[in-house]
């Protein structure tokens, strides 16, 4: 099945800093999503982005499907950005949506 790798596993930043999170996947995808899991465990969809670039406020994401990676950019980090960021993908040959192991982001005031 499709493999999903996220990096870095952990990231500690000061408030106001920018960050880039990476998701590599092993096969072509029909679906790629970025999620934020807050410290209370709630999972919130940030982007549906199987290809191209999208922006939502301080967050943006880019997926280069031909090179099998996606990037999530967070600018001007705030303490409320803390939590775990997951990439989830669905391979083109199956309906399973598989999650990466996540990047734990901690924003210090």
């Amino acid at each position, binding site marked *: 099945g499709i493999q999903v790798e996220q990096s870095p596993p952990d990231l500690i930043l000061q408030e106001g800093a920018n960050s880039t999170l990476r998701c590599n996947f092993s096969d072509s995808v029909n679906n790629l999503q970025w999620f934020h899991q807050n410290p209370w*465990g*709630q*999972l919130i969809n940030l982007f549906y982005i199987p290809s191209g670039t999208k922006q939502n406020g301080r967050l943006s994401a880019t997926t280069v499907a031909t090179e099998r990676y996606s990037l999530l950019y967070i600018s001007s980090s705030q303490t409320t950005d803390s939590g775990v960021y997951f990439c*989830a993908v669905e391979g083109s040959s199956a*309906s*399973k949506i598989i999650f*990466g192991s996540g990047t734990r982001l901690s924003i210090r005031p």
Partner: protein
Amino acid sequence: NAGVTQTPKFRILKIGQSMTLQCTQDMNHNYMYWYRQDPGMGLKLIYYSVGAGITDKGEVPNGYNVSRSTTEDFPLRLELAAPSQTSVYFCASIDRGPPLAKNIQYFGAGTRLSVL
């Protein structure tokens, strides 16, 4: 519109007991998923369903069973609970119909299960 609702929120089981985790969605989504998340880890797919009457195994299906008799409900059954099934369980749904922009997963709040 409640979205995806999971019950119970918390449960403690003894080894060998059985239980059903309930999941219901009111968005008329055709695809539904069950995941487990162990402490400090990512989500692992247990089972998924592409529509009523159709289910398939995910990455970690052993020890679990599912059914999908209606579009709204997708219960997860644990038979003979084991300590290794201690985890947080999440249910999710997705609308796979056009337009493609709807292809995002909505998650329930989770069920925290401890097997002692």
